[in-house]
């Protein structure tokens, strides 16, 4: 096709006075934007390929580079926006489904930012976490309705296996394949050091990482890639992935280009073959099938591993969660529509699912109305951006949260939304060896440890301000939240009062 209607999205601005033609930018850019023009002894840029990942800007020794939004204005039109027009250019050229990466970027309400937290004044004292104990440990797993004591005062009940988290934050599922080996290693080592867990995603678990098993959640999804008995027993818990917030109702697709020798061995598929996860699990067409899968996994692991079930936050999530609890899951993971992904059809990502805040609030409330909330753990995922989001999620009713976008940002991700190209300049969402080695796990795992440690300090500070010294007393404590600028219906669903009430 000769005519390309697409115009660049970004403009590369090079300060010629600063540029020393060292060619770092051209070596760093896997998208081949920068190139050296020998004749004129200058660096040139092919802007159409720029995804605005900031790699060249960060690496330029003289800070000669700037990336800007390309100053090309379409005629103002609130309906036919730039992206609406450009998407048509692409689809009319390719005839394909639009691919996108990371979470839903559309300007839907972010309820975290419409909730405010409480603090103690006079009638009860705030607590200083630097001077007093401040507990953030949580136990994830199934709990009985009540404990039984024998006549002799001995505890008779033995509870189901639990995952103990020192901090109520875990790294959410990102498969080896969608992200690099070095990114995986960084997550695993950070989780071990922090006393939390990371999640393998549906890509199996590399043999070299079995040693981090106590801090690993092994995932089993519709493709069953890399699943075998040893794998299921390798982690602290097993997660059945039914759905993902970024792409509810559809499966996954790892392009063959990302399936190198190591990924192939881990996933148990041929080198270079596409790894396609079907939309449904073909052994789960209803809730009773889910129960069978949960119990086959428990049988395989001698009832020593909790089984989580992860669903995308969809309209009927509360009823589905209730079914999952009754099907015997130890924990329910709810993934909101802003959750990230390595690749998803843009239409699905941007239009399917609901915000995690609303889904979490209604699921927690529904399980309480049915008297079974205490039996399962609830884990919220789908764009937890900072410690305040964590605190708000727990106050709405979560036991713990999963983070993934925040974790990859700590590893250097600059949110260029181009994971699906496999050419991640930061060495995260790629399998190209020279890109992967840019991410040094010895350094990067510490950034993850720093991030979670910092968040934990902030959580403790917020808890202390509320006059609470254990995260147990925050869970479901919705009186600690007030809505701001929300309508009656939103407040009702969130189960909170408006600020000033």
């Amino acid at each position, binding site marked *: 096709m000769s005519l390309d209607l697409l115009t660049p999205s970004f403009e590369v601005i090079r300060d010629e006075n600063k540029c020393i033609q060292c060619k770092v930018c051209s070596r760093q850019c896997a998208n081949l934007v920068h190139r050296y023009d020998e004749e004129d002894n200058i660096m040139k840029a092919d802007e159409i390929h720029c995804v605005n990942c900031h790699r060249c800007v960060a690496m330029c020794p003289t800070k000669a580079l700037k990336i800007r939004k390309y100053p090309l204005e379409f005629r103002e039109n609130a309906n036919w926006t730039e992206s609406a027009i450009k998407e048509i250019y692409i689809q009319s050229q390719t005839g394909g489904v639009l691919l996108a990466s990371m979470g839903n970027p559309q300007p839907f309400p972010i309820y975290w930012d419409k909730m405010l937290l409480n603090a103690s004044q006079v009638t009860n004292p705030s607590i200083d976490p630097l001077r007093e104990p401040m507990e953030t440990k949580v136990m994830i797993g199934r709990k009985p309705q009540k*404990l039984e004591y024998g006549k002799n005062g001995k505890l008779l009940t033995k509870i189901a296996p639990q995952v103990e988290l020192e901090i109520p934050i875990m790294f959410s599922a990102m498969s080896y394949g969608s992200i690099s080996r070095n990114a995986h290693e960084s997550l695993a080592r950070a989780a071990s050091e922090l006393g939390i867990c990371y999640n393998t995603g549906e890509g199996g678990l590399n043999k070299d990482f079995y040693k981090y098993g106590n801090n690993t959640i092994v995932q089993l999804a519709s493709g069953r890639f890399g699943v075998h008995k040893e794998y299921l027993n390798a982690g602290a818990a097993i997660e059945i992935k039914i759905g993902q917030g970024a792409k509810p109702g559809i499966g996954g697709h790892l392009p063959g280009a990302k399936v190198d020798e190591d990924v192939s061995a881990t996933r148990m598929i041929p080198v270079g073959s596409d790894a396609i996860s079907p939309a449904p699990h073909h052994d789960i067409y209803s809730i009773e099938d889910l129960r069978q899968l949960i119990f086959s996994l428990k049988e395989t692991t001698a009832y020593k591993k909790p089984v989580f079930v992860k669903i995308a936050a969809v309209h009927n999530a509360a009823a589905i969660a209730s079914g999952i609890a009754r099907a015997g899951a130890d924990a329910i993971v709810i993934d909101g529509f802003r959750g990230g992904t390595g690749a998803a059809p843009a239409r699905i990502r941007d239009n399917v699912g609901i915000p995690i805040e609303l889904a979490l609030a209604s699921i927690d409330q529904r399980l309480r109305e049915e*008297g079974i*909330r205490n039996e399962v753990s609830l884990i919220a995922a789908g764009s937890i951006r900072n410690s305040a989001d964590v605190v708000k999620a727990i106050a709405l009713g979560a036991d713990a949260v999963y983070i993934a976008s925040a974790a990859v940002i700590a590893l250097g991700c600059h949110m260029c939304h181009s994971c699906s190209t496999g050419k991640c300049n930061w060495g995260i969402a790629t399998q190209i060896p020279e890109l992967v080695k840019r991410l040094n796990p010895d350094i990067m795992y510490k950034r993850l440890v720093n991030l979670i440690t910092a968040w934990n300090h902030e959580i403790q500070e917020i808890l202390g301000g509320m006059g*609470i010294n254990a995260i147990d*007393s925050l869970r479901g404590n919705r*009186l600690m939240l007030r809505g701001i600028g929300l309508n009656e219906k939103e407040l009702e669903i969130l189960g909170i009062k408006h600020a000033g009430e």
Partner: protein
Amino acid sequence: MLKEGRVRIPSGCAISGIINKKGKRFSGADIIKSIALMHDRSNGLGGGFAAYGIYPQYKDFFALHIFYDNLSIKMRVEEYLDRYFKIESAGVIPTKDVPSIQNKPMIWRYFVKPFVFAIGENNDENEFVAQSVIKINKDFDGAYVFSSGKNMGTFKGVGYPEDIGEFFKLDTYEAYAWTAHGRFPTNTPGWWGGAHPFTMLDWSVVHNGEISSYDTNRRFVEMFGYKCSLQTDTEVITYLFDLLVRKHKIPLEKSIKIIASPFWKDIDRESKEIKEELKTLRAVYSSALVNGPFSIILGFQKGLIALNDRIKLRSMVAAEKDDITYIASEESAIRLICPNPGKVWAPRGGEPIIALLDEEIK
């Protein structure tokens, strides 16, 4: 202004408790003196008492103490009681005119026993009475059951506790255990039901503090059929004890380990077996951990239990002299009625004072 129950009102307070562990009964004069000394810890917007062993002649009947706003609601409640309970005796609770006590509701007392048909298959009269009390307080607007145990009673109202004690003529009652409460609410619509102690069956709780875990605790107990109609800390603490000890049959000393649980770092130091048990208690009942400042005295047939939050954010002192154990927010409130106690101590955070009748210990 909304009535208590529609709005949550934090309070500061004074508490006091006395028990004769031999079960010897004594009048309410001492407990009134003790709570009166801490006058400045309350502000005249709520006072009350709980007394154990006061109705020996009706010890097999539940003593319902009820506030009525008007005659028509009294008739409706009595119609309800008539349907499900044998009413052994009914009448107004005798009171004395005290100038500072105003806006009195009608205050009635009934000694009742549920009919066998009402109790139904599970044959648990306690559960039926508890559910009836919750139902009346929730569905009969203008009526409020403020005491429902056997051989015990609560007396409370809007006023300073010493005036409430005089109003109810507590010097004429004899009990083996007394607790008292003076309230300092930050605002109050002056509703008698909002005063403390709060009771459920034999349980009575007097409490000083504002718990920060309120909504976590409330939403937890409400999963088990309770309805927190008052939105007070005392109410939810009472329900927690009722749930753990009566319904779930968790031994009392273990229930205390739930309500004021040891810290994880202390749990980790225990022997393997104890560690497993404490971990299990905390994992299963983490929503029953009471957080934020509190000192409480829990009364029940067997005696009194006093408890502070785990980092002791509220004052509480205990003393012993012969067969009597004293507990109060301030030491002076004990020394006033027992100038030379054999032992005086300030219990540590989360460490209970357990003062049970001797016969119970046997």
